[in-house]
C-alpha cells in the first residue's frame, strides 16, 4: 500500500471516534473561557498540551486559584499514563528517524495510540508512520478546530444527548476486540477492577494502579499457563 492509502486508512479508522472528540473539544474550549481564561489561553492549552482530561483539570484548578505546583503536578500525573503508550508504540516506530519521532510523540493520544497498536498487531503490511499519522493528525486538527469553536461560541451540545459518554464508549469499542487470550482478559479484568476501587484516589492514582495491576495480572496468567 502507498503512504497515501495508509494515511487514509488511519483517517477512516479514527473517524467514528470523533463522535466523542468533537463535543469534548467544544467543552474544553468553552470551559476555559467560562473560567475566565482568554480564547488565546484556551487555544494555547489545546496546542501546547493537547490532552483533554489534563486541560479540563488545569482549567478547574486555575478557576479555583490553585498554586502553580499543584496545577503542574495534577496535569502531569493525569498525563503520566502516556509513558506506557510511548513504551508500547515505540517498538513500532523505532526505525523512524528522530525528525519523525518528535512530531509523532507530540501527537500521541489515547485514541491514536490504541487504534494504531491494535491495527499493527493484526496487520504486518500497513505503514506504521502513515497509519499512525492518519489517526493522530486527524485527532489534532479536529481537537484544535473544536477548541476554537467552543472558546468563541460556547459548547452548544443538546443537554438530553449524553455525548460525554461517547469517549468511554469509543475506548470500549477499541478495547473489546483487542482483548486476546487469557492474559489479555486478565489484564482487562484486573485493570478495570483496580481502577474502580481506586477511583476516588487523588492524582489519577486509580488509573495508574489499575493499568499496572492489569499488566502484572496478564503476565502472571501467561507465566502460570506456560
Amino acid at each position, binding site marked *: 500500500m502507498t503512504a497515501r492509502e495508509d494515511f487514509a486508512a488511519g483517517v477512516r479508522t479514527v473517524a467514528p471516534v470523533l463522535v466523542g472528540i468533537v463535543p469534548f473539544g467544544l467543552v474544553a474550549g468553552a470551559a476555559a473561557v467560562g*473560567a475566565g481564561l482568554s480564547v488565546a*489561553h484556551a487555544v494555547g492549552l489545546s496546542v*501546547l*498540551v*493537547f490532552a483533554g482530561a489534563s486541560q479540563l483539570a488545569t482549567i478547574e484548578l*486555575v478557576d479555583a486559584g490553585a*498554586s502553580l505546583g499543584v496545577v*503542574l503536578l495534577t*496535569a*502531569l500525573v493525569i*498525563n503520566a*499514563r*502516556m*509513558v*506506557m*503508550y*510511548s*513504551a*508500547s508504540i515505540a*517498538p513500532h*516506530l*523505532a526505525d523512524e528517524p528522530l525528525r519523525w*519521532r518528535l512530531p*509523532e*510523540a507530540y501527537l500521541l493520544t*489515547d485514541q491514536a495510540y490504541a487504534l494504531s*497498536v491494535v491495527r499493527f498487531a493484526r496487520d504486518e503490511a500497513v505503514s506504521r508512520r502513515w497509519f499512525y499519522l492518519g489517526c493522530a493528525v486527524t485527532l489534532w486538527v479536529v481537537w484544535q478546530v473544536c477548541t476554537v469553536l467552543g472558546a468563541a461560541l460556547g459548547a452548544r451540545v443538546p443537554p*438530553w*444527548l*449524553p*455525548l460525554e*459518554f461517547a469517549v*468511554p*464508549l469509543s*475506548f*470500549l*469499542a*477499541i*478495547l473489546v*476486540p483487542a482483548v486476546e487470550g487469557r*492474559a*489479555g482478559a486478565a489484564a*482487562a479484568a*484486573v*485493570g*478495570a477492577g483496580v*481502577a*474502580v*476501587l481506586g*477511583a476516588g484516589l487523588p492524582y489519577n492514582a*486509580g*488509573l495508574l494502579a*489499575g*493499568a499496572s*495491576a*492489569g*499488566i502484572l495480572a*496478564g*503476565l502472571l496468567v*501467561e507465566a502460570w499457563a506456560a
Partner: protein
Amino acid sequence: MTAAVPAVATADVARRFAVPAVTTADPGLVWLAVAAIGLGTFAIRLSFLLVLERVSVPPLAERALALVPAAVLSALVAPTLVVADGGPAVWGNDRLLAGAVATVVAWYTEDILATIVAGMGALLVLQALL
C-alpha cells in the same frame, strides 16, 4: 529577650516566598503554567520514543507492553461505567447497563460507530424508562 518581629516585615516575607497561585488575574502566570504542562507532557510522550532505539527490549518487557492496551483502556473505561455518585454502583446504574449493551455490540460487530450508537441509545432508553 526575644525581639518582636514587626507584622509588616512578616507579611512582606510571606508575599515574597509564597508559592504563586495561578489565577485568571495573572495571564502571564497562566501562560507559564500552560507552557510548563505542555513541555512536561511532551517529555512524557517522547520518553520511550527517544530511548528505545538504543536499548533492545527484553522478552518480558515485550509481553508486558503487549498487555498495555487491554490494561489501560479497561482502567480508563471501567470507572466511567461503574462509579456513580462517588462510589461503585451496580444496581440501578444506567451507565453500567448501557456499557454492557455496548460491550456485546463491540464483541459481535468490532465496529466503533455501532458500539457508540448502541451504548448511547441504550443509555437514552434506560434514562427514559427508569
